[in-house]
């Protein structure tokens, strides 16, 4: 008797590494968009990790008195013909005489942190709620999902604005607000998967073997409900970064002098006609980051969802 489960486990492992994992990996690599998105993302992660090495200045360092430079000075790149005696600022200098390039570089850290932390939190809470709703069913399902429906009835940014107003402005509260408004998305996905997986034979088998509810839900059902969640989560990070930047732009999220792209854009918005570079580059950074997650998410969906395969 003892040997059977071990053998089964080995076989299962073999089967997985040979098939499911590799097939998925291979189809991910076949996806052009996932590849492009993934590559940009890896670059961004590297930029975030090595920010102190890349950035020539401290992002919060005010350069008044240290260098001969005006506030909101235009970009100056020595290679492109900017006089050598002027200090080099690749993306110019912001309204508080800080190096814009260093701030944009450090902003990568903030934005990636925002994306991963909010979505991580939302996925954990959403998974728990969705799993409970789908597994228990009945009134629990009704109460949880009706509440999710009400949350979904509000445009998410508006709800996030309202929540931040209640909690008070600041990056932490903005993160919490964005996490809260995105919970329904994950709860719905998980509930749907749990509902369909619950009816499958291996779950009945587990029940017949005397598996407890906890065991069945967390060890049998949930691991099988993960793939759609990965796709939803990747796209969710894109949405979270956009929303957090919007909140910061409105002055509700990250507060100055934090080098957050939305905040940087918001504080220079009235200077768009005189110093367009201070609006252009932070926005471009937001766009590239969000784009990388969107491409990756789309590619993953095509790779995981067999219906869309050729």
């Amino acid at each position, binding site marked *: 008797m003892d040997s059977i489960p071990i053998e089964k486990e080995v076989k299962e492992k073999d089967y997985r590494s040979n098939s499911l994992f590799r097939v998925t990996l291979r189809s991910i690599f076949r996806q052009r968009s996932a590849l492009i998105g993934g590559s940009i993302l890896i670059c961004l992660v590297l930029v975030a990790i090595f920010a102190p090495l890349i950035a020539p200045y401290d992002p919060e360092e005010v350069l008044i008195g240290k260098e001969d430079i005006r506030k909101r000075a235009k970009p100056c790149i020595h290679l492109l013909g900017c006089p050598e005696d002027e200090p080099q600022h690749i993306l110019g200098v912001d309204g508080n005489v800080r190096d814009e390039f260093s701030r944009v570089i450090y902003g990568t850290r903030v934005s990636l942190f925002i994306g991963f932390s909010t979505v991580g939190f939302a996925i954990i809470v959403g998974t728990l709620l969705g799993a409970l709703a789908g597994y228990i069913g009945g009134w629990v399902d009704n109460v949880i999902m009706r509440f999710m429906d*009400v949350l979904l009835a509000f445009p998410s940014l*508006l709800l996030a604005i309202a929540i931040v107003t*209640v909690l008070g402005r600041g990056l932490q509260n903005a993160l919490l607000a964005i996490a809260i408004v995105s919970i329904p998305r994950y709860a719905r996905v998980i509930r749907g998967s749990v509902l369909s997986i619950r009816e499958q034979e291996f779950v009945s088998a587990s029940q017949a073997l005397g598996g407890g509810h906890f065991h069945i839900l967390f060890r049998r059902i949930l691991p099988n409900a993960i793939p759609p969640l990965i796709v939803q989560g990747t796209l969710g990070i894109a949405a979270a970064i956009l929303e957090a930047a*919007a909140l910061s*732009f409105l002055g509700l999220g990250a507060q100055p002098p934090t080098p957050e792209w939305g905040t940087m854009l918001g504080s220079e*918005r009235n200077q768009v*006609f005189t110093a367009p570079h201070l609006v252009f580059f932070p926005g471009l950074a937001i*766009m590239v980051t969000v784009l990388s997650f969107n*491409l990756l998410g*789309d590619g993953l969906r095509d790779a995981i969802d067999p219906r869309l395969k050729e």
Partner: protein
Amino acid sequence: MLIGILVVTFVIARSIPGDPCKAMLGEKATQEVCDRFNREHGLDKSIPVQFWIYAKDIVRGDFGESIRYSRPVTIILIERLPMTMELGFVALVLAVLVGIPLGVISAVKRNSIIDVITMLIANTGVSMPVYWLGLMLAYVFALLLKDTPFWLAPSGRITAGIIPVPFYEVFGWVVEDESVKYHFLEFFSNMYIFNSLITGEWEIFWDAIKHLILPSVALSTIPLSIIARMTRSSMLEVLRQDYIRTARAKGLRENLVILKHAFRNALLPISTIIGLQLGTVFAGAVLTESIFGLAGVGRMLFEAITARDFPIVQAFTVVIAVGYVLANLLVDISYAFIDPRIKLD
């Protein structure tokens, strides 16, 4: 659902920290003054009683009085909503009129250069911050293209000095001031494009359109991209079906196959996504209106939240949420027309 929306907006509005009295009358307001203020605004009653009064009033179309402006919220809505509706409508129409053809062409010419470019634009479009695009458009069209015929105003609804005459006055209708009919007509005349269209004031019409181009282009980018992507994937799904091959085998012209056989069947998911885009448009309105200096609902809502003007926050969120739910209900109903197999129970 409606009760849920009411409860959530009520709870949010009431849990905004800070004392509305102190926010309105200043930090130095005495307890006595604040007590009177609270009594006047019904803030001294218990929370459930406040909710009951609030729900009862809303059903009657009475949203209470703005604490900051001391005017009925309904009147403020009548002034502000038309602007947002006009902006949202134009943006959504633009998104549909451009997004769907792009998606269809992209699907039909799959993997061609047109497809690659369209999807590149669509993917960039969904990843773009609305306010950034708005500011960049303003920079290009108001500054770089200054002194060219392509110049567009960076802010406002209409050139300063132009005052559109409400259509009911042009038509010589006699309307009693402050009557329901007056507010009703006022609501429609506040849509400048609509108003100048039916009164035939083409100069004002053109001026209003020119002011609306930049904000509505900025606002429509995300919905446009999402609609284009959805149309493409939905069309691709349908074009693989057997009945498309049958239609082609019958010798039908390709245009006919695509429009009558494929597009018609791809329309269901597209209409769902269009309904959902209304949320994006409303949320985007907050940002677009504040960038282009437009006095609409979105900007008002944001200002009201910061000023703790509960009645406005409640009313505007309710109106937006209800509008969103109703629009999606409309989409659900339209399913039956798009796909006759779906029956409404």
